[in-house]
């Protein structure tokens, strides 16, 4: 079941098209990566899902129904450009933001107390935000985003500004939230965290949705039949043992051994390759190169430019 669907969303601004016929489906209880270069239209799409702006055409369905004004209370949003009122006290501010999301004062206080204890930040309650560091303020923002236990969470570049320790903690919290049943939309440029966290992705480039699917499937689709072989012996000897169906694309080193990356052309397979090289060198390791999300991202975006 898809928790959120967008149908043929179109949004034009004065001088450019921000979103052109974008349809995505976000499966329930997944972590959904929203990828794309700067200015591709990710933030506009997120704003439409949050009802901050309205699309020119198309519709957004939450739980199968068109998005209603009250639905913003079921969504938690941590924008990329985020901040807090500098002169306001941390506790007051968190309480205010929680109540804006429809929680009662009593309930907000109870939950805030719990989270402040969990993050060990009770001492900040009466401090003004301007006294906090950027990372500290980010923690408060994270707490206020998830406090109303929304069904759908949207994080726009959540890790920017966090040190590695806090970033790791945040990652754990996100995985925890998923375990508890939330669905998470995750917009980022950090492909490492995409591979680590996301189940599904969609890649938006030039206002269009150019790639969508399960992350494992996508990586399989984009693999280019390249294998890396690390071996003991001379590279030339190995090269001379290959026939024209195999092409050495790169000569490298791996863990102190010589290594080559070999691309397999049609009508060949890994076993045949191994049987060809085993007589000439001592094979240490043999593995298929599965493209990283980073490579896929760059490839797909570049292909689309042409």
């Amino acid at each position: 079941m898809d928790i959120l669907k967008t149908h043929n969303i179109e949004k034009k601004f004065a001088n450019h098209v921000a979103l052109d016929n974008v349809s995505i489906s976000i499966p329930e209880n997944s972590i959904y990566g929203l990828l794309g270069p700067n200015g591709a239209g990710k933030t506009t799409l997120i704003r439409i899902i949050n009802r901050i702006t309205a699309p020119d055409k198309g519709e957004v369905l939450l739980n199968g129904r068109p998005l209603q004004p009250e639905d913003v209370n079921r969504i938690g949003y941590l924008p990329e450009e985020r901040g807090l009122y500098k002169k306001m006290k941390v506790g007051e501010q968190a309480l205010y933001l929680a109540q804006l999301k429809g929680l009662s004062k009593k309930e907000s206080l109870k939950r805030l107390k719990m989270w402040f204890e969990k993050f060990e930040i009770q001492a900040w309650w009466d401090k003004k935000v301007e006294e906090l560091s950027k990372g500290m303020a980010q923690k408060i923002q994270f707490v206020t985003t998830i406090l109303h236990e929304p069904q759908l969470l949207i994080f726009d570049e959540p890790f920017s500004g966090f040190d590695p320790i806090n970033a790791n903690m945040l990652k754990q919290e996100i995985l925890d939230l998923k375990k508890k049943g939330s669905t998470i939309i995750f917009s980022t440029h950090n492909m490492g965290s995409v591979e680590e966290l996301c189940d599904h992705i969609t890649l938006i480039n030039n206002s269009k949705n150019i790639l969508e699917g399960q992350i494992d499937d996508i990586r399989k689709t984009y693999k280019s039949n390249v294998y890396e072989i690390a071996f003991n012996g001379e590279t030339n000897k190995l090269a001379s043992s290959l026939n024209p169906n195999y092409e050495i694309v790169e000569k490298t080193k791996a863990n102190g051994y010589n290594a080559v990356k070999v691309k397999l052309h049609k009508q060949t397979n890994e076993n045949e390759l191994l049987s060809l090289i085993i007589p000439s060198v001592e094979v240490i390791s043999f593995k298929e190169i599965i493209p990283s999300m980073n490579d896929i991202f760059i490839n797909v975006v570049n292909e689309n430019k042409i």
Partner: protein
Amino acid sequence: MNKIKLIISREYLTRVKKKSFLVMTILGPILFAAMMIVPAWLASREDTEVRHIAVVDSSGIFIDRIEDTDYIKFEYLNDKSIHEVKKDFSESKYYAVLQILPSITYEPTAVHLFSNTQPSFSIKSHIANSMEKELKYRKLKSHGIDENILKSIKSEVSIRTIQWTEDGEEKESSTEVAMAVGYASGFLIYFFIFLFGAQVMRGVIEEKTNRIVEIIISSARPFQLMMGKIVGIALVGLTQFLLWIILTLMIITGVKTVFFPELGTQNAQEIVVQDLFEQEGVQQIEELQPQNLDKISSILNAAKSIDYGVLFGSFIFFFLGGYLLYGSLFAAIGAAVDNETDTQQFMLPITIPLIISIVVMMNVVQNPESPIAFWFSMIPLTSPIIMMVRIPFGVPYWELALSMGLLVLTFIGSVWLAGKIYRTGILMYGKKTSYKELWKWLRYKS
């Protein structure tokens, strides 16, 4: 609806709890009270030092004829020459020496006042007045006019204005009082619109630069946030205004009872004096003192004649109306820019009508019924100030109603327009906004 209440209360509470609010609340009335008390205090302290002036009158006309006042005493030294007086001057008790030459009857400059300081203007004019009066007497007398006739022709006219109200009552009014109240209310509205309108703008810019705005509008609609801010700050303004009035009254009464206890009793005397004159009709008025008292009492009566209910009610209405109109425009400006320095180009068109109001106000207090006064009190951008200036003079109810109606329509329109600019503007970062851009924003779909 619940969300807008939350926003209003946040905007209100954070501002009211600020130290600057407390400081302004306390300083404001002190300044207001000082504005009213200090001149009175200064007037009451007016030169209590008694000054003696030696008169060397070689014409012989003015001996014992220049009036002494409470603080200026004249002594006539006719047996001495001016040189003798000059020689002893520094050891003498005299403040100045008045020399009158015999040619005074036909030569106006034949009077000299010697002193080692610059004599005050009031002394100079007192001497000149007394001498002119004496000379006039003498000249008229030399034409054979009797002294009693001379006394009886001295007349005074003091016009008391009385308004006939629609239900036939008579109300004593005073142009001076109406002018003063008109000025004060006009300026106060101007001041409030600027002060609190700018606060709206700063609040919007703060949210934009702090980048909290996107978090808020993912919970509440931009219009709710804008209106919440405008209404919250309006309440801050009203709170401050009421606190000022209460504190000012407290300070004034406090100071009055402590420092000027005689003021209270004086009132009663004035009324007695006034009644006396009313019985006798307009008669020759010899003395200065009762006439002054009469003026004061007529001012007090006139001040009482202003309908404070209408004045206060209109003030609140025009303050809120003008503030909503300008406040929404200020909010739109705040949303259109990234920081306060960029506001200049948009501030100008908003500031101009306000400045024009102040300029027109100078004219309107002189002439509250003129076509200029009428039209500027109808145009919604200037009406909050100009209408407030006119109200103490009495404005027909239909004009007041029309002006209020137009203001309401306009602020609804301006809030609607501002909402459209605001909605788009708060999400635009790092781009310098032009008027062309604003026009495009107005046409975006919500």
